[in-house]
């Protein structure tokens, strides 16, 4: 057996074939894109280009450029009133993806359990698996607006015993669900009760439309037990730059840095240069993109409900998770059929958990013209069949 057992046992993407089908097609209107349709604002790209012209091409400090960490420190203070020591409590990572992986490897011993509300981003479970831990999935429903309840977490911790951590992503992918400060405080109480660590993926925080986003680490009693992960991909449309950050208690950040310095060494310097500019002057660009997403959210939610696909209004990100109960097909069959007959691509809910088979994920990170056309085509598909 040439492949490690652990990797062999890792669940492959159940819809890999479908993805390959979509990627190979031309002239598809895609509602399946998990990244902004905007290009990184020019002033950020320009700084990156300029840094290359000036010859900034070497390694940086493992933890990330000092200038970037200082900028992040003042940004977090200004934006959320959170204070982190940029020397000991901060690490610049290759996207939240690396941050998540490092956090799991840093805190989990073999067999340690991590509670994960679902539907969740596809990497959460595998990251826990790869680190030798055991994911405990908690199913959320449309009734609860896909938000996990404190009761669910409490019961899971009582049943499972030795749950090490809670892994939460909010606003979430694929549901767009997010939590108010009150709801988060209720969850924090359960976290304290069971002495859990929290790994919080807040990459979509700037795209919260109905209320102010509250970082988990800002809640009372949570800062010294939360690994706060965030980045630049969604707010600043910098997905390809592969840059994010982790803030947390000194011991966990130090452990994550230890792994990071052996495996990655440092995040690309060009991306770090771009990130400094984003933090420094990117707020206006973010506001503009957010305004556009909000318009599209209204349009898509209303259109889907008119078509007959029950769709709740998600609080954040750029996804909706409507129910396809009306079509009486599995989510994968519906997605394949829609792709073949109408050339519209979306992601079947089953990709995010077997119990999500009667949902699909629709991304509204696409131009209004595309959304308009896609909604019309879905409407004609639904009403024909």
């Amino acid at each position, binding site marked *: 057996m040439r492949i490690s057992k652990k990797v062999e046992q890792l669940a492959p993407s159940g819809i890999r074939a479908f*993805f390959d089908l*979509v*990627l190979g*097609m031309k002239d*598809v209107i*895609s509602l*399946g*894109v*998990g*990244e902004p*349709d905007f*290009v990184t604002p020019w002033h950020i790209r320009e700084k990156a280009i300029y840094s290359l012209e000036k010859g900034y091409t070497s390694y940086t400090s493992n933890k990330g450029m000092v200038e970037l960490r200082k900028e992040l420190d003042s940004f977090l203070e200004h934006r959320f009133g959170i204070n982190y020591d940029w020397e000991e409590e901060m690490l610049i990572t290759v996207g939240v993806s690396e941050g998540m992986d490092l956090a799991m490897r840093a805190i989990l011993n073999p067999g340690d359990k991590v509670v994960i509300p679902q539907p969740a*981003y*596809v*990497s959460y479970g595998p990251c826990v698996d790869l680190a030798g831990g055991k994911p405990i999935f908690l199913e959320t429903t449309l009734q609860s607006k896909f938000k996990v309840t404190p009761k669910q977490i409490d019961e899971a911790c009582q049943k499972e015993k030795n749950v090490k951590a809670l892994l939460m992503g909010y606003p979430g*992918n694929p549901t767009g669900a997010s939590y108010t400060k009150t709801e988060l405080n209720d969850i924090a109480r359960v976290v304290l009760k069971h002495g859990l660590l929290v790994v919080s993926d807040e990459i979509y925080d700037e795209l919260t439309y109905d209320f102010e986003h509250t970082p988990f680490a800002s809640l009372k009693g949570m800062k010294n037990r939360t690994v706060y992960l965030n980045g630049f991909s969604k707010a600043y449309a910098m997905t390809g730059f592969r840059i994010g950050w982790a803030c947390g208690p000194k011991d966990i950040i130090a452990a994550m840095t230890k792994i990071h310095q052996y495996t990655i060494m440092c995040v690309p310097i060009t991306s770090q240069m771009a990130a400094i500019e984003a933090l420094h002057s990117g707020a206006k660009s973010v506001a503009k993109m957010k305004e556009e997403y909000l*318009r*599209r959210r*209204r*349009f898509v939610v*209303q*259109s889907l409900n008119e078509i007959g696909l029950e769709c709740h209004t998600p609080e954040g990100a750029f996804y909706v998770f409507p129910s396809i109960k009306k079509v009486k097909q599995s989510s994968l069959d519906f997605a394949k059929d829609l792709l073949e007959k109408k050339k519209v*691509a979306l*992601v079947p809910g089953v*990709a995010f958990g077997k119990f999500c088979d009667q949902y699909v994920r629709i991304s509204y990170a696409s131009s*209004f013209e595309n959304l*308009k056309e896609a909604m019309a085509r879905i409407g004609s598909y639904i009403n024909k069949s």
Partner: protein
Amino acid sequence: MNDILKILADDARVTPAEIAKLTGKNLASVKKAISQYEKEGVIIKYKAVINQDLIKEASSFVRALIEVNITPQKDVGFDSVAERIYSFSEVKSCYLLSGAYDLLLVVEGENIQTVANFVASKLSSMENVRGTTTHFLLKKYKEDGEVLKKSGNHKQLNISY
């Protein structure tokens, strides 16, 4: 600018029903607001933005930016002089500016000669016009927020988590 105006300023063909969906307002109030704007002149007109340089037909034309110095008229200042100037159909745009000169005109004509004739015979000789400087426009890169060249279409992956 409010939501409705922002949407129409970017794409005048978005229908009131679509605007209603995008803004979360109801259709009746969107229609009412739009007709109010049209009545008041807040919305002057709906036009297509055309890139003249890509039109292959024979009719050529030339554009010039003309700086005009004028002596303001007693009691009315620049306004009435400006009105006499912009009333000419050749004048496409007319702006009052601070600085070294007073008015900036955008003038269109069939060729350089036509524009030069306009300046000499109609503009310079006008009462209250002290002097003009004509700059011929060689190339438009960007106008009113629209980049005029076709951008290389970078394609995203069709699907991603």
